[in-house]
């Protein structure tokens, strides 16, 4: 028999040494020689999305999946699993009850997932076009070549697919608008400038299944009548750039793309443009300016890119994840895709579940699942079983959703009506030790740095909002600050030039809406209820709870904690810098915080 060993070589696993693991497998297989009873092959796959447990190794056809595999484990896997089909129990995942999990689909992180955009990732070698073809790749493109543009767009329309990059604009409408233009040449472009802190679904698709993006883009090109396309990928995504570039070359070599697309006589030339590192280049008009070689600044719309985009010509710009859905929609039909999801948001969405949850990673689930399902079932709840406080959805310009709204279904319209947004699908989970004012300050600081500075409200407004938020966090808040932040926020929402500015105040406005009392505590009582803002927090050890384990004293970077073993410890306020390391280290909840007057 033949066994296939799939070694995850996504960026996360690579960083944890998965390349060594894959090489060790290869070395051992070669060393065994030809007399082995079991033939085997090693494949390096894209990201499995459960990066915190990497490197991940999967053995087929047994479907046994191992986590945190090191080079020293490889020999045992070869001897037991590859040769005998038996599991190495210590490398299996343990579920919430501590039971070992043999198969991927039984893992509580993967079990509820429904993979469409991520369907091939982790199962194929992204550097081999043969793997993609074997998984049914480029069949949708072949089908599209037999269809008229109107028929292609009709299927996308029936699917109800909305742009996965953030705005949720119906994909078919963009295509239709560009298809109607009589102005040639037209262009297609893929937005791979994923810039949200904590979001990495686009990277995962580009790295792990590059041909799917190319196929989606090629189908779009057929639908609108374009012969040239660009993939704008942020330069920090080195592996994504490499895999996509190689995939284009491979596809051209196999006659799939290039001068004669699958022998149809149609032409499609794709090329990679490496992003210059600006968050704002995720905005479509800024991205277009950047491809054209100009400074990445947005311009007013209309005209929309479908009418006047790249080099002044009709252009369709789609997000990576949007394009990854296209081949499936064409192959299975728009109706099948639309059967998943909610009334207004069809299909699935990939979320980057990060923050204070037990299981973090990439999660693809049907639209309309609740936040509770996402955070507690898939994510396994909050680390150390602390209380859930809020989740920031949609990246830095999304909004903070509080605990009493955990049963909200996650779809484009519901999130928007609650002041947050789907965005690209970032989900940053926070526990009771997160200060919501500090969270807002952090995001506004990010956005103020990433604002292109073209329009007044974004450039100047964010600067002033940051100033006020910093004051509040450092104990210089004043009466009226909350109202001024709201006023500034509403001005930005209405009057900014592009979506970055219009959505930038969301973190501030939602934290004020749902956590106003926390702002008030900072301003009126000079107290940070979460014990995060350094200048408003002092730490104290509760002598009754302290067991004298010395963990806090060892964690303290300034040596401010004294006390013998099994004796209650004491913090010297003169040496304490309020960093909170002691509180993190304490397993008995003995470290308390209290407000202190601003210095």
């Amino acid at each position: 028999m033949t066994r296939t060993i799939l070694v995850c070589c996504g960026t996360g696993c690579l960083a944890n040494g998965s390349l060594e693991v894959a090489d060790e497998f290869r070395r051992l297989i070669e060393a065994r020689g030809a007399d082995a009873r079991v033939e085997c092959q090693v494949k390096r796959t894209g990201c499995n999305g459960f990066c915190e447990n990497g490197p991940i190794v999967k053995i087929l056809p047994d479907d046994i999946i191992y986590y945190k595999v090191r080079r020293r484990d490889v020999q045992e896997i070869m001897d037991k699993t590859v040769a005998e089909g038996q599991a190495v129990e210590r490398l299996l995942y343990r579920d919430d009850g501590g039971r070992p999990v043999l198969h991927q689909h039984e893992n509580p992180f993967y079990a509820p997932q429904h993979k469409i955009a991520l369907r091939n990732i982790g199962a194929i070698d992204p550097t081999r076009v043969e793997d993609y073809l074997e998984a049914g790749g480029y069949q949708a493109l072949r089908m599209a070549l037999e269809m008229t543009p109107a028929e292609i767009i009709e299927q996308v329309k029936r699917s109800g697919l909305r742009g996965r990059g953030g705005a949720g604009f119906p994909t078919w409408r963009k295509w239709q608008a560009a298809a109607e233009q009589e102005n040639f040449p037209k262009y297609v472009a893929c937005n791979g400038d994923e810039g949200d802190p904590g979001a990495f679904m686009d990277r995962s698709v580009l790295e792990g299944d590059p041909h799917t993006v190319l196929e989606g883009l090629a189908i779009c090109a057929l639908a609108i009548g374009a012969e040239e396309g660009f993939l704008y990928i942020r330069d920090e995504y080195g592996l994504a750039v490499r895999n996509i570039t190689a995939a284009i070359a491979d596809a051209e070599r196999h006659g799939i793309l290039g001068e004669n697309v699958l022998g149809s006589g149609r032409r499609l030339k794709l090329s990679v443009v490496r992003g210059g590192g600006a968050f704002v280049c995720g905005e479509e008009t800024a991205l277009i300016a950047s491809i054209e070689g100009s400074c990445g600044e947005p311009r007013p719309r209309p005209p929309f890119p479908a009418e006047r985009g790249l080099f002044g010509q009709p252009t369709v710009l789609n997000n990576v994840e949007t394009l990854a859905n296209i081949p499936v929609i064409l192959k299975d039909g728009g109706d099948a895709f639309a059967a998943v999801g909610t009334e207004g948001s069809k299909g699935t969405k990939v979320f980057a579940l990060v923050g204070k949850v037990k299981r973090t990673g990439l999660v693809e689930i049907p639209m309309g699942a609740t936040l509770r399902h996402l955070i507690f079932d898939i994510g396994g709840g909050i680390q150390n079983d602390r209380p859930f406080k809020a989740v920031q959805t949609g990246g830095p310009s999304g909004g903070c959703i509080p605990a009493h709204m955990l049963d909200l279904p996650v779809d484009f319209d519901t999130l928007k009506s609650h002041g947050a947004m789907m965005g690209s699908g970032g989900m940053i989970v926070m526990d009771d030790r997160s200060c919501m004012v500090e969270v807002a300050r952090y995001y506004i600081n990010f956005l103020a740095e990433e604002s292109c500075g073209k329009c007044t409200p974004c450039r100047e407004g964010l600067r002033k909002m940051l100033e006020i938020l910093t004051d509040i966090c450092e104990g210089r808040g004043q009466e009226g600050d909350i109202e001024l932040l709201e006023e500034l926020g509403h001005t930005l929402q209405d009057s900014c030039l592009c979506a970055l500015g219009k959505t930038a105040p969301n973190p501030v406005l939602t934290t004020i809406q749902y956590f106003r009392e926390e702002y008030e505590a900072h301003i009126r009582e000079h107290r940070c209820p979460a014990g995060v803002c350094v200048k408003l927090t002092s730490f104290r050890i509760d002598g009754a709870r302290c067991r004298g384990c010395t963990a806090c004293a060892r964690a303290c970077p300034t040596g401010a904690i004294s006390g013998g073993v099994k004796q209650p410890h004491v913090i010297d306020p003169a040496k304490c810098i309020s960093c909170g390391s002691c509180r993190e280290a304490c397993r008995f909840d003995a470290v308390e915080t209290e407000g202190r007057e601003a210095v």
Partner: protein
Amino acid sequence: MTITIDGKICSCEKGEKLLAVARRNRIPIPTLCHHESLPGQASCRVCIVEVVQQGRSTVTSACVYPVEEGIQVYTNSDRIRRERGMILALLHKRAPDSRLIADMCRIYGAPELNRVSVSLPGKCILCGLCVRACAELSVGAISTVNRGVTKEIATPYHEPSAVCVGCGSCASVCPTGAIEVTETADTRTIWDKTFPLVRCARCGAPIGTREELDHAARKAGVERETLCEHCRRRSMTDVLAAAYGD
């Protein structure tokens, strides 16, 4: 087609910009970054108006908004007054030395914003008109530098530009007079670079920098101008007079 601006029915053509329609109908909308010859910046956002279309109200900038049949526009609603005031107040913090911005703050009832600090001294509001003017009329010697809150307008590396011809187009389009131009009898200094002034061969009045006249001559494919506008016209009348008699 017609649209309604502040209750007044205005006729216009498809694709016309809202600001142009309003101005034709004597409905004032303030602007800073708009210039008739260099339209489409949409960066200052002072010209925001409320547009109601099919019952949906959005705020947009009038200078770039192409009108559509039947829209209702409010240039002075509570919402617009409040937000325009806030934008002007922010600009005042950015360009505290600009008289124009201070005056506009007063006229449009901008809030004081004493709570926050002044961002920088100076007059520049970073509207980008100077950059556009230089790129389109002249040589592209200046550009925006950095992004976000650290953005500024400058020559490369803040050094005197190798290509600047000292034409002063940037200064003449600047709405707040933020670009300093100093002239002596023989020189003009702009962006830290000093240019010799060329004088009219006939009357001796200054007609521009030597680099500027060379640049214009190269662009037009003619000899460099030696006469001022006035003398050029006079010399032409002399030619005509000689040809056709008195």
